[in-house]
């Protein structure tokens, strides 16, 4: 750690990890309700559990991005953050808004658009948080060195904030409502979040492989170009059955099929850089997360997304457990693993823990990743059965659910294993154990 103000990232990382834990716990609870439908049904209905599960995810990922930005901006811009104090205020405001949202949900105060359930005052607070961040980070960027990584990252975060403004527009016409709702959801996760992802991966590659910045930044431009050239019109795959014109099927088919290309480019990029760099970075765990992120994003977002993006397939699979399978692996692979990669990389420096013992963290990686993969397979099979019984044979929804109960048991099992893995990860990140002197002969030399 070169710059004092990088320390503010610690707040965000711990905040993110707290909400991460909450997200997983509520996920396991939701999985339990699937197999014991009466569990908690009087106290905490499923809709509230799910709301907390998804909202906690989105908020902690965003918090992680802010943390990552505050960590890498000073190194990229070669200057301290404009105002660390403001960054801390921003954190507490964000954390307070997140916790207030959870309390509101439990009390039954929420709005009803999926993922955008936050009551209006909390939405406003989120905008204020974003404005503080943009002010702080943009001024940092302007006064320091301008690199492709910091530019792309900040452009990504600007658009995250701008697109969120569509959360305030809720037309009475349901089809319009849905069309603009995707402006937030799709253009976030399949558009500008990919900019954030590519830039953070590029930062990690520069730091960990020692490959020349020139090379990496050029790759970065190729990756983000591919992401947006395909991702923006790829929105078409959400405009199939919600009252939008039929031509979206063609646009969606062609462009969203190509959305797999940027994810493939990221895999090639990461592995090529590591191979080319050939440098042994002491933080193997962070490298594992970064490589794992590119691979799992490719499978979760790329392959699993492609599987049901063609309109003639989506006609049958839309809104089934196949969607759930894709959603779980895509978010985990692309964005959860990305955040864990940068946390794993940054924490030993922020806490001054060299040499750092990564055993626990890497165990967490393998356990969680395998369990997520298993969960995805389970839900995919559940979805295939569901599609056949419900969409082809026309069996009633609840009867079909009884048929696939076994898959929900397996999913719960996978969920419990994820919880164990995540516990290990969080533990290893919060404690940041030192390696014992005997085994810690390799001193951490990175900066």
């Amino acid at each position, binding site marked *: 750690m070169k710059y004092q103000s990088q320390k503010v990232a610690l707040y965000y990382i711990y905040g993110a990890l707290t909400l991460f834990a909450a997200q997983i716990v509520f996920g396991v609870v939701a999985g339990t309700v699937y197999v014991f439908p009466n569990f908690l049904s009087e106290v905490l209905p499923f809709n509230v559990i799910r709301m907390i599960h998804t909202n906690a995810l989105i908020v902690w990922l965003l918090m992680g991005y802010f943390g990552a930005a505050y960590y890498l901006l000073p190194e990229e811009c070669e200057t301290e953050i404009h105002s660390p104090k403001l960054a801390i205020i921003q954190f507490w405001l964000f954390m307070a808004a997140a916790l207030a949202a959870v309390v509101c949900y439990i009390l039954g105060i929420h709005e009803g658009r999926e993922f955008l359930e936050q009551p209006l005052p909390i939405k406003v607070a989120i905008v204020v948080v974003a404005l503080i961040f943009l002010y702080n980070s943009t001024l940092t960027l302007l006064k320091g060195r*301008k690199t492709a990584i910091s530019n792309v990252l900040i452009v990504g975060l600007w658009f995250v904030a701008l697109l969120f403004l569509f959360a305030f527009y809720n037309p009475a016409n349901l089809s319009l409502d849905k069309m603009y709702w995707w402006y937030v959801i799709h253009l976030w996760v399949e558009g500008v979040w990919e900019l954030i992802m590519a830039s953070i991966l590029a930062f990690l590659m520069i730091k960990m492989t020692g490959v020349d910045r020139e090379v990496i930044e050029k790759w970065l431009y190729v990756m983000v170009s591919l992401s947006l*050239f395909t991702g923006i019109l790829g929105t078409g795959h959400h405009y199939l059955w919600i009252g939008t014109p039929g031509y979206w099927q063609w646009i969606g088919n062609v462009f969203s099929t190509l959305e797999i290309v940027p994810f493939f480019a990221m895999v090639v990029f990461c592995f090529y850089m590591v191979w080319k760099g050939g440098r042994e970075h002491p933080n193997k765990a962070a490298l594992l997360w970064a490589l794992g992120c590119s691979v799992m994003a490719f499978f979760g977002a790329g392959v699993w997304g492609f599987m049901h993006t063609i309109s003639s397939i989506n006609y049958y699979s839309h809104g089934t457990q196949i969607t759930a399978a894709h959603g779980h692996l895509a978010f985990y692979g692309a964005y959860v693993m990305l955040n864990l990669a940068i946390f794993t990389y940054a924490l030993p420096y922020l806490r001054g823990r060299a040499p750092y013992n990564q055993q626990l963290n890497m165990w967490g990686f393998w356990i969680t990743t395998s369990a997520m993969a298993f969960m995805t397979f389970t839900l995919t099979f559940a979805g295939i059965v569901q599609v056949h019984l419900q969409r082809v044979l026309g069996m009633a929804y609840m009867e079909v659910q009884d048929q696939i109960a076994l898959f929900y048991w397996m999913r719960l099992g996978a969920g419990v294993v994820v919880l164990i893995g995540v516990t290990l990860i969080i533990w290893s990140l919060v404690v940041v154990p030192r390696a014992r002197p005997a085994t810690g002969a390799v001193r951490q030399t990175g900066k």
Partner: protein
Amino acid sequence: MKGDKNTVDCPVRDVAVDIAAPEGDEDTGGWGGLEFLPGHPLIWVLILSELVVFGAFLLVFSAVRIMDPAGFAADQLHLSPLAGGINTIILLTSGLCAVFAMRAVEHGKLLSCRVWLGATALLGLVFLIVKLLEYGAKIDAGITIDTSTFFTLYFLITGFHALHVVLGLGILCVVGIWPSRINIETGTAFWHMVDLIWVLVFPVIYLVR
């Protein structure tokens, strides 16, 4: 312009890299194989994406035609192959002008380069006018994007292509204002791509029956 500071210091750094990294086989400049194509490497990312998109559209068009050859044939009679053919020749000619513009800048003749670029753009404009007349005729005949699968794809593919012509015109203007060799190379590469796509779109949609 805000980015100007970057523009100034980038080449310096680039040169330094060229000297520092002479191992040179597969990525001297760090752009991978894209390095060896004319124009800025990133324009080739765009060009390749576009070719794949249009390629996919044309294949989809052909595949869907298998389902309903009679309907496609009937709808196709509403198209004017003559207008399409004229447009093909217009674009081919504008491509030729673009080559002349490139040659001019190579010999350092900026004025001549701009004149050829102007001719290129003018022909592009004529292409768009012919296109709009075609669309106008369709709409007058009550044909829209919703009329049938054939016309959905017709409007999507040719419309998307026409928008590329519009973008191409913009690019030609930009590189015409700053006519460095690399800029002209980049701009004309994009223009030739638009030309190339039309050469494939025209027969598949207008002629094959």
